[in-house]
């Protein structure tokens, strides 16, 4: 809490403290790696926390099979460069049933491919702690979630009986089958994340930078045509526009924004001058107020 540290230095120190605490106290931690910019920062912090050792836990990617191709390439490159074990889990049951965002709607699709997939992976490998890159400024229910967030054996979050979290003393005790989700960058904002990426020169998926890409306009949003699974609806046509992504997820559910920002400073500049929040590009939050809270109770990150 020293005044001579800048806000980013303090945030970094807090995150490193959290990462180390988990490694010291848990038997089998894992880092949920979603390939986005928040995951990039979290992974960078983990490398710093355990240097000169590599981070002593694997990365887990719950692959919905609908991620942008550039994300998958980036994921494999980072895992190799950082000398990390990468576990890729796909909900095969969902795949066999042909669950897709087009045929089943975003709510069911997300539940099956993301939430169910995540729970399957956590159960299969018996992870007792899972790092996630969620931030408290993203969404209201996250603002109240603890950094060390307890999950029952059924992966449920109970917002009404959260453990009090004081100072930097984290209660890591669990019974067999239970687990803790840990959010090392809880106290970072979107701006902090971008500033840190800029300052530390952290590699991010090229989709964050503006480039000419094929898109269709659907329900007022620009959806990128990342492969031939995107079926055009009547009246839709593929256009080539200079676009970038403020947030990355499954390509049919993640809207692009028109932009010319092709460098990090220009991205930050655009972000600072814009008037909409980053989650706006995510269809998952649009269903209803409190939808994130419901999803989280059911086990979503």
């Amino acid at each position: 809490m020293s005044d001579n540290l800048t806000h980013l230095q303090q945030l970094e120190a807090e995150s490193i403290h959290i990462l180390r605490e988990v490694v010291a106290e848990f038997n089998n931690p894992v880092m949920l790696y979603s390939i986005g910019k928040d995951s990039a920062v979290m992974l960078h912090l983990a490398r710093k926390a355990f240097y000169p050792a590599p981070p002593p836990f694997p990365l887990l990617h719950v692959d919905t099979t609908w991620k942008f191709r550039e994300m998958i390439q980036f994921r494999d490159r980072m895992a190799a460069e950082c000398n990390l074990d990468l576990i890729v889990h796909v909900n095969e049951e969902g795949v066999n049933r042909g669950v897709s965002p087009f045929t089943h709607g975003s709510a069911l699709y997300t539940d099956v491919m993301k939430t169910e997939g995540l729970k399957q992976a956590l159960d299969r490998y018996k992870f007792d702690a899972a790092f996630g890159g969620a931030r408290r400024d993203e969404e209201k229910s996250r603002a109240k979630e603890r950094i060390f967030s307890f999950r029952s054996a059924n992966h449920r979050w109970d917002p009404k009986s959260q453990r009090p979290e004081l100072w930097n003393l984290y209660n890591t005790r669990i019974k067999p089958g239970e687990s803790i989700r840990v959010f090392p960058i809880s106290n970072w904002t979107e701006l902090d994340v971008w500033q840190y990426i800029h300052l530390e020169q952290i590699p991010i998926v090229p989709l964050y930078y503006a480039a000419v890409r094929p898109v269709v306009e659907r329900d007022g949003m620009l959806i990128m045509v990342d492969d031939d699974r995107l079926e055009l609806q009547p009246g839709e046509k593929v256009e080539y526009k200079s676009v970038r992504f403020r947030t990355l997820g499954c390509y049919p559910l993640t809207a692009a924004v028109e932009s010319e920002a092709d460098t990090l400073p220009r991205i930050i500049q655009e972000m600072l001058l814009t008037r909409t929040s980053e989650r706006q590009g995510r269809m998952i939050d649009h269903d209803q107020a409190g939808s994130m809270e419901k999803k989280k109770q059911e086990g979503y990150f």
Partner: protein
Amino acid sequence: MAHQSDLIESDILAYLKSQEEKTLLRFITCGSVDDGKSTLIGRLLWDSKMVFEDQLAALEVDSKKVGTQGGAIDYALLLDGLQAEREQGITIDVAYRFFSTDKRKFIVADTPGHEQYTRNMVTGASTAQVAVILVDARKGLLTQTRRHSFLVSLVGIRNVVLAINKMDLIDFDQKQFDAIQRDYEKFAAPLGFASITAIPLSALNGDNMIEASANTPWYSGPTLMGYLENVPVAGDSRGEPFRLPVQWVNRPHLDFRGFCGTIASGTVRPGDEILVASSGRTSRVARIVTMQGDLPEATAGQAVTLTLKDEIDVSRGDMLTIPDAPPLHTRHPEAHLVWMHDEPLQPGQLYLVKTASAVTPGRVTAVQYVVDVNTLEQKQEPTLGLNGIGVVRLELDRPVSFDPYRNNRDTGSFILIDRYTNATVAAGMVITAPVDPDAVQVTEFTPEVVVCEDAAPVRISLSAASVSASGASVVDLSSEGCAIEFEISPSFIEHLGKGNRVLFRLKDLGQLHAVALLAFQQRLSFEFDRTAEGISILVFRRGIKPVENSYADTGTSI
């Protein structure tokens, strides 16, 4: 979101450079249910342009649906995150909010005003450096104001803002503002705050939030934002003795042993001599290792990896310190305990005690007294229930390194965990520790008066502030080697006159004379207690009724 938008547009790199120097302030807001806390924070977010258009659109919809402002924008809805809370119209847990200006990034802990949620306030305050205590200008100080202020002081916050809100509803009446400020300063004097800044506000209308209000020409102090941007961040502990609780030992290969942890206080450089508090072994710092190269120096707040010149035994749970000012290393800390669970404290039962450096089984052996948070009165009770606060003595299975909480929040704090349910049941703040009977060989107690070479007795001055400002009514004389005598201030006698009790912890029987003399001269009573830990004398005034609750919750100003 557009602060400094000119610079952002014209020279983003210069802007980014300027942002690298930004500092961080964590603060807490506390107030009663209707004081407008959520509105105040919502307004800060709003005015610092941290609300986006899509959030604004959602806010407009929500304001019409569940708002309390008759369809107008209800800033409080920016904050109340969980559905259950929205429906009840109150905040029921601790929420963290973020905003920034060009000078600082802010983390706000939004905490509830409900009585049963003392635990949430203590939780939010534990990481805060400043407290904003809200008062409704129409109502003045309430019991809650007193309670919040006490909790804030207990948790070690030294700078408070008295945010006198809803000034618009009393026509910005200076007299009433002054009266509330005076009342508060008088009441808060024993709490030992370093600064109290009263600000006349209307959070709803924005008066004195960012810009000085035209409605309060008589007020020349800072606006709320002005204060938050400029208040020096307390707890700069670079100059304090070095403390590194070892969190993890990094051993990637045989040639590297790094000791990882967050520096709790002080500064460290390669070559510095360090002491392992548990073993007394010493070594020197070889390197401060980071992924981006070794550092020449590291200071409080940084998460570091140190290597040492010698192979000495250090593991998680140890504390690296400077040799000439080591921490307490004890099995028997005495501490403030805030009970946070429905199941009351079971003295004698084993809990897990988690400190900055270790998890150790331990039990509470005695509740010295319980503090009524509304009256600050001390009572003798056998246990602590939910939201109870008291001074207790602990017995740990093995010695642990601590500092008194008032010296170091990081190495003076701990939590208690229930071994069966794994619930976090209490938060603790170390006051002191008696000389450890394990460390000092005491085979037989010899009631001899220690004769000092230096004949002049040590004068110890006692005032209400000296006993209550430190947070505990404990006078610890166990480190005074020589004869003592007291200098008594009227406020000290007044403190006892209100029914408060003061515990004197003695080094030996020789000091008893001075305490007995004090009791004789001031017509006080005392109880004598000798345990394995030493001698203690509880001094009090007999026949005094406990402090009357002078701060009623009737809604009238006092």
